[in-house]
């Protein structure tokens, strides 16, 4: 009782502090400093219509590279923590025909929609991370509905590595052509898609990087699911 009231009191004090701090920031007023620069130059400098993805991939590409690294480390960490010699699915009850058939019908659509999200990253909200997570949902569905389903490991792990390395490679090509890492060579040097901004084949290297990130995130999260649903079997 005393513990709980002390905790509530502390939270109230912290909340009051935060509210006091935010009270100084007026709501609904223009306080952008660099924001204006992004919004005014995003089309001519990156070719993307979606300013958010342009900032995330192009202006601040290092952040995204870091995020991809974080996800990779998370996946490797889960694999290392749950590493055992012999692992198997231990689920016993097969789902009913409604569940399994529904999953069979849904999985292709889920994967197609995930790809749709990351291919249109430079035009619509979304991008590589939501798209990849959607694809992983498809594999989660398969894991939930079928007691024996397993992702094809060799293919998945290779694809993940290749996608990650290709991202760095795209950046390195930029270093060779334009002088700095993650330089957008497709847009700045090749001028590809300059005449059709807003259509699919535009946006410099954003679509390419997002396809790579989508594939990487999709395979990575599926790998985490795979690691977590399996249990050790005694020999």
């Amino acid at each position, binding site marked *: 009782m005393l513990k709980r009231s002390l905790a509530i009191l502390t939270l109230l004090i912290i909340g009051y502090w935060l509210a006091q701090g935010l009270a100084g920031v007026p709501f609904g007023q223009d306080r952008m400093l660099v924001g204006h620069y992004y919004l005014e130059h995003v089309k001519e400098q990156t070719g993307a219509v979606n300013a958010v993805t342009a900032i995330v991939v192009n202006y601040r590409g290092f952040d995204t590279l870091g995020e991809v690294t974080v996800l990779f480390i998370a996946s490797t960490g889960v694999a290392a923590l749950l590493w055992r010699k012999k692992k198997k699915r231990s689920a016993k009850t097969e789902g009913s*025909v409604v569940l399994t058939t529904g999953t*069979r*019908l849904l999985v*292709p659509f889920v994967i197609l929609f995930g*790809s*749709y999200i990351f291919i249109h990253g430079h035009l619509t909200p979304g991008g590589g991370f939501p798209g990849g997570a959607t694809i992983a949902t498809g594999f989660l569905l398969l894991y939930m509905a079928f007691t024996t389903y397993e992702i094809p490991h060799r293919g998945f792990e290779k694809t993940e590595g290749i996608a990650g390395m290709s991202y760095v490679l795209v950046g390195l090509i930029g270093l060779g052509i334009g002088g700095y890492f993650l330089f957008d060579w497709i847009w700045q040097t090749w001028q590809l898609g300059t005449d059709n901004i807003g*259509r699919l084949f535009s946006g410099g290297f954003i679509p390419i990087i997002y396809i790579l990130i989508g594939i990487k995130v999709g395979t990575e999260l599926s790998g985490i699911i795979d690691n977590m649903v399996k249990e050790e079997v005694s020999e």
Partner: protein
Amino acid sequence: MGEASKISRYLYTVIVLFLIWLFLTASLDPQELEVGLLLALIVGAFTYEIFTTSGLANLHPRRVVYAIAYVPYFLWAMIMANLDVAYRVLHPKRPINPGIVECKTVLKSDVGKLALANSITLTPGTITLDVDDDRYFIHWINVTDDSVEGASMNITAPFEKFLKVIFG
């Protein structure tokens, strides 16, 4: 129904995925069409094995016509069932007589069974609890006939005459 050839199943998956892509993008820009076709080919290659067993036979004109006709038929059944449940809720005496009944179905394919189970659940008043081979266990809000034949006549038969043609 036997399994169709791999090519037929693959082509069917690609066609369905491409149609979905057309609905998703809602544009006939050639760039979108090219990428959509490419994606349908790729995703189809990975998923056709789980997606379909009967392949292109699903696109038989008779089946497509029945599938299109089934949409308004089902919507009408859904509206009537909703009104029926609303009547039962609003009626001061609350005339319900709930119970679980067993039904038999004549459908053979898994997809047909899924469609039937979902049709039963989406029409209020009946909920599919479990499907076991050709037996359906259904929670019925107003049980008028608890024999297997009688319940099937009332619940599954109206949908089956369409679903039998669409899915087999």
